[in-house]
């Protein structure tokens, strides 16, 4: 295999959830730039209009599907529709997710349930349905979305319920890697830190104090840009990662590995 082919996704069909904006849109576009056809899932098909346009601009087929991933019946129908439309599914990228930044003692139960249903159940239902197709094909690559708070560190940011769903996704990733490893399906996850997305815009980046801490505490001294997730996801989805499964890959400017403290002589 030559080096270009190692990362080439030509002829592959990729399903991306949460594809309408933010990291999902960046990743869906990136997969298309590396050759993949893209089925873009978001709450409504209309949400993914710009994503499909970007996929088309990259010269690939893109289709938008409306689906609430928290609902297993909707997932079943949508995955069946995508398999019918594209003929196969080689790559599954589970990005659909929500966050809520509320101190734990004040967190409404309905919010905890919704976070769990979208982030964790959504990932589970998608893996379950697409997993059946990949097992029948005897091959496929899944990349889930964990987070820095999903087992690497606690950050005390008032989103304990969110972080717990991301920890569940990390465990699910490792379990499925073992369960399906001998059948040609690789299951990995990325664990991003703070990225410049719409989801984070109001809750994080408008908070100057928070941003100042991020700059101090992240070794690379900056937040991530959505396109910086493309390399890690394309890598894990491609033949380049043929011997990698069960990995939770931090994409975090060094945060998980380190605890930088500025030292100045007194």
């Amino acid at each position: 295999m030559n080096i270009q082919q190692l990362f080439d996704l030509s002829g592959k069909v990729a399903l991306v959830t949460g594809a309408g904006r933010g990291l999902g849109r960046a990743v869906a576009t990136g997969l298309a730039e590396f050759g993949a056809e893209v089925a873009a899932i978001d709450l409504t098909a209309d949400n993914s209009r710009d994503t499909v346009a970007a996929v088309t601009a990259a010269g690939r087929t893109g289709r938008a599907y409306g689906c609430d991933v928290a609902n297993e019946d909707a997932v079943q129908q949508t995955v069946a529709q995508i398999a019918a439309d594209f003929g196969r599914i080689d790559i599954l990228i589970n990005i659909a997710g929500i966050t809520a930044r509320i101190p734990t003692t004040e967190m409404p139960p309905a919010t905890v349930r919704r976070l769990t249903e979208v982030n964790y159940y959504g990932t589970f239902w998608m893996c379950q349905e697409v997993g059946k197709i990949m097992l029948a094909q005897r091959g496929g690559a899944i990349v889930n979305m964990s987070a820095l708070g999903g087992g690497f560190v606690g950050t005390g940011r008032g989103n304990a319920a969110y972080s717990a769903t991301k920890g569940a996704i990390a465990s699910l990733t490792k379990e499925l890697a073992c369960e399906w490893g001998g059948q040609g399906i690789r299951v990995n996850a990325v664990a991003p830190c703070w990225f410049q997305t719409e989801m984070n815009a109001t809750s994080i980046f408008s908070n100057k104090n928070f941003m100042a801490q991020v700059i101090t505490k992240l070794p690379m001294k900056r937040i991530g840009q959505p396109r910086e997730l493309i390399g890690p996801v394309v890598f894990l989805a491609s033949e380049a990662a043929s011997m990698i499964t069960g990995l939770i890959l931090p994409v975090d400017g060094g945060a998980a590995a380190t605890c930088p403290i500025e030292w100045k002589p007194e």
Partner: protein
Amino acid sequence: MFELNGKVALVTGGRRGLGLAMAAGLARAGATVAVNGTAAESAELKKKMTAAGAPWAYFRADLADRDQRQGLVQRVVDRFGRLDILVNGAGIQYRQPAMEFDLGKWDLIISLMLTAVFELSQQAARVMEKQGGGKIVNIGSLSCFQGGWTVPAYTAAKHGVAGLTKALANEWAAKNIQVNAIAPGYFDTDMCAPIKADPVREPKIRDRIPAGRWGEPEDLVGPLLFLASDASNYVDGHILVVDGGWMVR
């Protein structure tokens, strides 16, 4: 995003095994490659590097010897003008029960597999800082995380490399030098030949690997190109396990 055209890489321990596969992989991705090894240039090395189609040269130096490793990065810069990627791959294995373990072998392994990694990273980072950035990829092992059996020096060195990877990542992140490591699982190389040939241990190991197979040297090329290229610009201080799922079981 994964191309290395115009980049200069130094691969230590690149004369054979995983190191040679990685050196050839970098060359196939467009990098000019400085290959380091202890012994004389081999026919296999020449054949593989020439086939890769990029400029390359062999830099003989025994990295267990401080005098020989001292000027290595400078020799590469003198020849190729710059250094963008350092792959610290040189390593040896020595098995003996800890109670009897030869202390000379201990010193040799720590010098070659830990101290030399630090010294070469230091030499490289001084060059990379002036150039505005660079990539250091250390080669770890499952022994970055696990204790192994009758290989105390190897395990200590590889745990050390894991810690060093994080320490240097932390210190050099803001200089745009990313420091990561690859931790290969069970790979079919000369170093693992005694285990691969063991009729008792080999099937036990294979059965525990979710992917159901040993790694081939070529399986390391993709992960290396990821960590050596712009595709991983926001990944730093990570020990990337390439093990067919061994560690998750």
